[in-house]
């Protein structure tokens, strides 16, 4: 796995979510994803950025263009915060489970919208969510 380029965006206030969204929008257009996949990726980024802000109390997003070693290009986004963490990650991934005012679909939804999804969290030490979408093979 090779990281070809990387952008680091802070997520500290509401406006930062739109900034993350527009950065992702630019990268997905650059990588020539199909319109459906572009929309899916931007939406997943929007969900996780909001989680970072609202549940993680702020953090940052890494937007990476990666190569799997065989020349296949993908987009990976890592959302990291140092907030309270998620005590029960399985529960958090269940649809409809929320600790806030949202719909409780953000995490599970982001997982379904992307190809790969990793969630690491321990109570008290923050949360790291990593999602990847690979370019469609022609």
């Amino acid at each position, binding site marked *: 796995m090779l990281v070809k380029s990387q952008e680091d965006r802070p997520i500290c206030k509401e406006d930062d979510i739109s900034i993350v969204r527009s950065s992702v929008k630019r990268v997905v257009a650059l990588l020539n994803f199909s319109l*459906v996949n572009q*929309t*899916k990726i931007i939406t997943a980024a929007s*969900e996780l950025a909001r989680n970072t802000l609202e549940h993680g109390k702020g953090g940052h997003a890494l937007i990476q263009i990666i190569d799997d070693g065989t020349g296949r290009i993908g987009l990976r986004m890592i959302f990291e915060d140092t907030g309270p963490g998620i005590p029960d990650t399985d529960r958090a991934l269940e649809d409809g489970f929320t600790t806030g005012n949202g*719909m409780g*679909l953000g995490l*599970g*939804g982001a997982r*379904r919208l992307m190809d790969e999804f990793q969630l690491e969290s321990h109570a008290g030490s923050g949360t790291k969510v990593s999602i990847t979408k690979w370019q469609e093979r022609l």
Partner: protein
Amino acid sequence: MAKDTLTPIASILSKSSADIIENWVSLQLANKNRSQAVSDSSLTTSSNEFFKLFQAAAKDGNIENLNTPEWSAVKLMLSDLSVSRARLGSSPSETASFVLSFKQPLFEQLNKDFGNDPSLAKMSWALSVLIDDLALVTTEAFQKTREDIIRRQQKDILEMSTPVIKMWEGIVAVPLIGTLDSARTQIVMENLLQKIVDIGAKIAILDITGVPTVDTQTAQHLIKTVSATRLMGAECIISGIRPQIAQTIVHLGIEIHDIVTRATMEDALREAMARVGWYSYKEADAKDEVR
């Protein structure tokens, strides 16, 4: 730093005031890179005014702390100057260099009077820091003016971008454009519900063609708007759902329950008209029926 090292500055300012100011104004006028936005006469006036206030503020030898009351007049004058010059088209760096250019005549005078005095370096340093800080005041004021403008425009855009249009008897439509956040939803809801009351609308069409991303938060805002409309006794139709948005909504797992949705505004309008008892035909089709 002891105050008494710095008191000579106050005496220089009063003793050689005429020389310093004359020197300063001529230096500025001679500067070829000077912007044409500020006329010679207003430059002379503001230089004199700044010098007078600067002299008064430094009178007691305090040139180290700008947060004391004696400097407030200087800061106020610089903020006003920055704002008024920005209106004339000066860049923030031009306004800042107006203040920074004050160093040269001041240091020349210090050098003349204290050339051999060991405290010269200390005095120059203190003055240099002071004038740099004053230059920052102008930049901050400029920035603040800009931010005020941006904030006002954002508010204008927010209100402008959410019109509620009467489409037909009993039918209103809201074309949503941009990101649907909480503030936006609030305005849309207020305007929409008011319009429903005003014209006694039975159907409201929310068009999301111009909403780039529909995430769970946006969906939640839409659902709330639909519920509020229902409480008013009207029905909502959401139109402008593009194929990629439809797929994303399904993957996110958002249940749209019994909300009526249509792909295009045209379909939504036809549906809405049918519900209030209007049907539309093409002229040719209508003639066929008559025959």
